[in-house]
């Protein structure tokens, strides 16, 4: 909400010593946060003065335009006292008029520098200004003609134009709708600023009583429209200009001057907070009816939009049909126009919830709607209408029709019991019952009783419904800055949960493996999954869609972290990165076919069954870890050539995580997108697949724009964490000597090394301490389709030195089992 300071001060006296900074600081501390102080003339520098037009000679031009060559008296402002010669394109002035002149050296908004320059055959030394050129609105129909008493030629014109006005902008929270008016802001000044006094409520005025000569209005839905006031102005001059102060003020408030009639309704809305609607009375046919829309009804609102209405929408109708969407936007047929001379003024109070729903339903966001949906003072309908009539007749030359229609009465404000010590209990500082009552009265409440105060909020505060709401009013006036600072003393905590600790360790472990953590948005498209090469029946293609995605190119919640990581990898490559690893751990969204999440009651705790239904309606959201490696795993350097990342680096990174968690992972070959079908490791805990790792499919690399032979892994961390070792047992190391045996086994190339190792382990028995594959050989010496696996076996007994031949016997047993299981033949 923007408000010129002078307008605020029209309704409340502020001590002379209170600066704008101090005033806004105080308002900020009591809840109206200062957004900024601006001045409409802040972008104008240099001489801007009153000029009197001395001569005006129209000169038709070849291009069809007629310009005027003028001489203008600018007093001494030009340093010579001689008349200033200025070319002007506008025509809405005559010699003798006072105009606004910017002289050479001046700068207008937008950095427009004024100099004496040759144009249309004259040297034009300055410019006669329009409102738009000065940033005072959109009016460019002509230049500004000042009132005859605006000042003497040569005088600075900023004050007259309101250019030196300070306009204060506040952030208004949804519960303080009353501050969307000068009336409300002035009241806040009164209660917030020391020494502020003499609040003059613009909504308190003598209004003529209702009579039966007013325009006929039938309110069929009094719950939706508790009060409807109608007044008429006849014989209004539609050409009457808006007075400067109204135009300047509504412009300052961020609205656009349109015509006197419209500007007056907006002015009164800003002044009182009460939205007003004006109808062209000559276009009304028969009585006005307020009701809910009927099935299938349509209305063309004054923005030209045809709207299909909902039966919950409050509408205004006459004999011609619908003429307005009550409280939200008027209809086109009865809109105030440039020829409207008879005006019907509507000042009605509307049900806030209905306003909110209609505005949301029809996506209408208007100044009127903003106020109506947050709650307006229902008691000032007559005053606001009367103020509109006053301004219309004063500046538009019409007459107030004696008829006054008032339908309905403002709803009473509910009385709330507020414990006298509530503010103390809520704030933690001593606030007496007297202070509580005093503060509540200051904001307009009626207070009676003691111990438990009976408090009735003022009609402009529909937000004050609960006792605690009133405590906020008290505490903010006593001062949030006076709330003491006291640390609470929680009971002994249990620290991070084990799962939380494990997640941190996982992050550190993967970082320790050389990967850099990144954070990606979870939004993806089908196309992202196509790029991963996922088959049509892949479970990862079942995604949760967003109703309102930011981009139609990424409408779904991802089921895999890889699209985000691969995009990020490609971006890094684009930035010139050659060798890097990145990882992310985040939840993915796996929809499941279940019913809706119920909207549960809020006046009690939902039952466990209700909560269960709620939670079960949500998709599965397992925590995943994914990583991508690009370029060299071991860097090239002065020490020699590096090593390009390969499938095993991705596997190793996952194994490092598993090791950190104490989880035994088994590895087997798989063929799963987006991995290379021959270089994809499936990782299992027991029989549960936790994820995959390996080299990416070349087509996936190409689709995402990452270098060929990049690697990736993705695993379900929830499963890994679930299997994390609970309590590690201390190992017992034997101090007896080790016996080493190496074996080289030739197997078919298709036999997985993991199978050979498993057979060796089992066959070697308990004496085997460790086994390590130290070489894999393929080549002529062993024949085509074969590979040689060389293992180093270490044997040791926990309690004795091995006897001669014992280790060899165990080795032979191991080889025998490998021969039996895998067809392994020992190389001689």
């Amino acid at each position, binding site marked *: 909400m923007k408000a010129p300071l002078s307008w605020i001060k029209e309704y409340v006296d502020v001590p002379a010593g209170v600066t704008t900074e101090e005033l806004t600081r105080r308002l*900020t501390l009591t809840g109206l946060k200062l957004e900024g102080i601006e001045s409409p003339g802040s972008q104008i520098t240099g001489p801007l003065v009153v000029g009197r037009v001395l001569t005006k000679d129209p000169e038709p031009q070849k291009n069809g335009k007629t310009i005027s060559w003028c001489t203008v008296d600018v007093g001494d402002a030009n340093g010579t006292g001689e008349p200033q010669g200025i070319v002007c394109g506008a025509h809405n002035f005559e010699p003798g008029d006072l105009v606004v002149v910017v002289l050479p050296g001046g700068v207008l908004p937008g950095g427009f520098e004024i100099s004496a320059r040759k144009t249309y055959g004259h040297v034009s030394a300055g410019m006669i200004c329009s409102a738009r050129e000065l940033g005072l609105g959109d009016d460019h129909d002509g230049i500004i003609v000042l009132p005859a008493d605006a000042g003497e030629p040569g005088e600075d014109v900023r004050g007259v134009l309101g250019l030196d006005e300070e306009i204060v902008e506040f952030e208004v929270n949804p519960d303080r709708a009353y501050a969307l008016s000068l009336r409300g802001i002035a009241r806040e000044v009164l209660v917030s600023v020391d020494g502020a006094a003499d609040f003059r409520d613009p909504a308190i005025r003598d209004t003529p009583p209702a009579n039966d000569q007013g325009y006929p209005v039938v309110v069929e839905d009094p719950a939706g429209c508790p009060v409807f006031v109608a007044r008429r102005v006849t014989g209004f001059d539609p050409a009457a200009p808006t007075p400067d102060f109204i135009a300047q003020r509504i412009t300052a408030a961020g609205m656009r001057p349109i015509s006197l009639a419209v500007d007056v309704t907006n002015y009164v809305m800003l002044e009182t907070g009460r939205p007003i609607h004006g109808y062209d009375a000559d276009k009304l046919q028969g009585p006005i009816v307020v009701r809910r829309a009927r099935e299938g009804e349509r209305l063309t609102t004054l923005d030209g939009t045809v709207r299909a209405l909902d039966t919950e929408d409050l509408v205004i109708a006459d004999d011609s049909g619908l003429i307005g969407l009550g409280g939200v936007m008027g209809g086109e047929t009865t809109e105030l126009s440039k020829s409207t001379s008879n005006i019907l003024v509507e000042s009605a109070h509307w049900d806030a919830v209905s306003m909110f729903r209609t505005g949301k339903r029809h996506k209408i966001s208007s100044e009127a709607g903003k106020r109506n949906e947050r709650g307006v003072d229902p008691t000032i309908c007559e005053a606001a209408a009367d103020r509109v009539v006053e301004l219309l007749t004063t500046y538009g030359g019409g007459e107030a029709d004696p008829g006054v229609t008032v339908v309905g009465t403002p709803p009473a404000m509910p009385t709330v019991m507020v414990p006298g010590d509530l503010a103390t209990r809520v704030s933690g500082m001593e606030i007496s019952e007297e202070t509580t009552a005093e503060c509540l009265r200051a904001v307009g409440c009626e207070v009676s009783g003691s111990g438990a105060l009976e408090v009735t909020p003022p009609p402009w505060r529909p937000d004050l419904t609960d006792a605690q709401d009133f405590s906020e009013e008290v505490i903010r006036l006593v001062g949030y800055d006076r709330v003491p600072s006291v640390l609470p003393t929680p009971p002994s905590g249990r620290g991070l949960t084990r799962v*939380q600790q494990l997640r941190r360790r996982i992050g550190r472990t993967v970082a320790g493996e050389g990967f850099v953590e990144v954070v990606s948005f979870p939004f993806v498209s089908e196309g992202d999954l196509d790029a991963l090469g996922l088959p049509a029946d892949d479970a990862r293609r079942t995604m949760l869609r967003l109703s309102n995605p930011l981009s139609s190119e990424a409408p779904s919640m991802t089921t895999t972290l890889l699209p985000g990581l691969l995009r*990020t990898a490609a971006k890094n490559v684009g930035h010139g*990165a050659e060798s890097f690893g990145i990882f992310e751990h985040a939840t993915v969204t796996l929809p499941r076919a279940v019913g809706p999440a119920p909207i549960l009651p809020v006046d009690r705790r939902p039952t466990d069954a209700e909560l269960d239904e709620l939670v079960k309606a949500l998709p599965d959201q397992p925590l995943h870890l994914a990583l991508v490696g690009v370029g060299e795993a071991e860097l090239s350097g*002065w020490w020699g050539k590096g090593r390009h990342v390969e499938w095993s680096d991705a596997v190793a990174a996952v194994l490092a995580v598993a090791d950190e968690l104490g989880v035994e992972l088994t590895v087997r070959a798989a063929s799963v997108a987006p991995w290379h079908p021959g270089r994809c490791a499936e990782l299992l805990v027991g029989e549960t697949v936790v994820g995959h790792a390996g080299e990416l499919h070349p087509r996936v690399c190409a689709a995402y724009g990452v270098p060929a032979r990049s690697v990736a892994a993705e695993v379900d961390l929830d499963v890994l964490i679930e299997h994390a070792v609970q309590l590690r047992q201390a190992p017992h190391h034997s101090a007896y000597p080790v016996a080493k045996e190496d074996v080289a086994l030739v197997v078919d190339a298709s036999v997985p090394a993991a199978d050979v190792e498993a057979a060796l382990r089992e066959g070697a028995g308990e004496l085997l301490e460790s086994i390590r594959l130290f070489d894999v050989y393929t080549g002529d010496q062993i024949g085509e389709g074969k590979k040689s696996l060389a293992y180093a076996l270490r044997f040791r007994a926990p309690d004795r030195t091995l006897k001669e031949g014992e280790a060899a016997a165990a080795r032979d047993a191991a080889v025998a089992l490998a021969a039996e299981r895998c067809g392994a033949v020992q190389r001689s």
Partner: protein
Amino acid sequence: MSGPNTDYDPVEVTPLKADEVEAMRDAALAAIAAATDLESLKQVRLDHAGDRSPLALANREIGALPPQARKDAGQRVGQARGAVNKALAERQAVLEAEHEERMLVEEAVDVTLPAERRRRGSRHPITLQSDLIADLFVAMGWEVAEGPVVEAEWLNFDALNLGPDHPARTMQDTFWTEPADHHVVLRTQTSPVQARTMLTRKPPIYVVCPGRVFRTDEYDATHSPMFHQVEGLVVDEGITMAHLKGTLDHFASQLFGDGIDTRFRPSYFPFTEPSAEVDVRCFVCRGVDSPACRTCKGEGWIEWGGCGVVNPRVLIACGVDPEVYTGFAFGMGIDRSFMFRHNMADLRDLFEGDVRFSAAFGTEI
């Protein structure tokens, strides 16, 4: 003790005269002194202290001498051999030291060569900041609560006193999921975690909830459709705004430095009443007359988040008796806090995934 001296040839025996033994000794000592490296010393050792060295041979003859001569000769030869062995050991030590010194010089490398052969990993600064914040609260005895990002509408809104017609719902632009009548949203705040906590735990509750949240904000230097929040919730007997202030002052001083406190301004949040905006004192200029401060733009304070006393309506919906318990809650942007704590200008740097960005923060902040 010795066996028969089979190769002993008495013919070659020379008398064990004192001057001859001395000559043998002096020759040995001279040779030792002349040895310039370990190799030549090895030869000297063989020649002058080996089995066939003159002194060794002389030693063998001692046994054949008459008793009185045997004693004298034994003493003489023994002393000579002792002197030779000592000289050998000393020389050996000197030459070894020289050798080692030379080796070490020869093996010198250019230690300014680049040493990193592996890529260094790092964690994301927002993860680090979240952990840091969680740790600050865990140190006070609080616990860390969590919840899903795809959340039930009821938990994200209704339970928090944001009914379907609450104007404040328009304050937050929500991502809705399909089908719309399933009432499932991307959480717009971490507050549903508070609701979940109250629904599943008995007070006293002291929890902090960091996590990702989503709003339909266009992506620019200060907005992102996904960002990170941390919220705190306390529900206990006798909890007041003063405890809220104390907690946030402590939080501010831990995160931004000693003496950094907070300021409350009245505000509005449906889930708290009274509600406040919390500003943190600028930790660069400390709020002292600093019109030029770029961190706080001369205001002395930086907008940090929102907070307030838990609205009794929220307590009721979450099964907490407001007659017995009161609470406070607060929430702030982790990303925003990170941005001003670490002097970062563009929010998007957090989500672009440039490895140079994350790598700058290592694994702890």
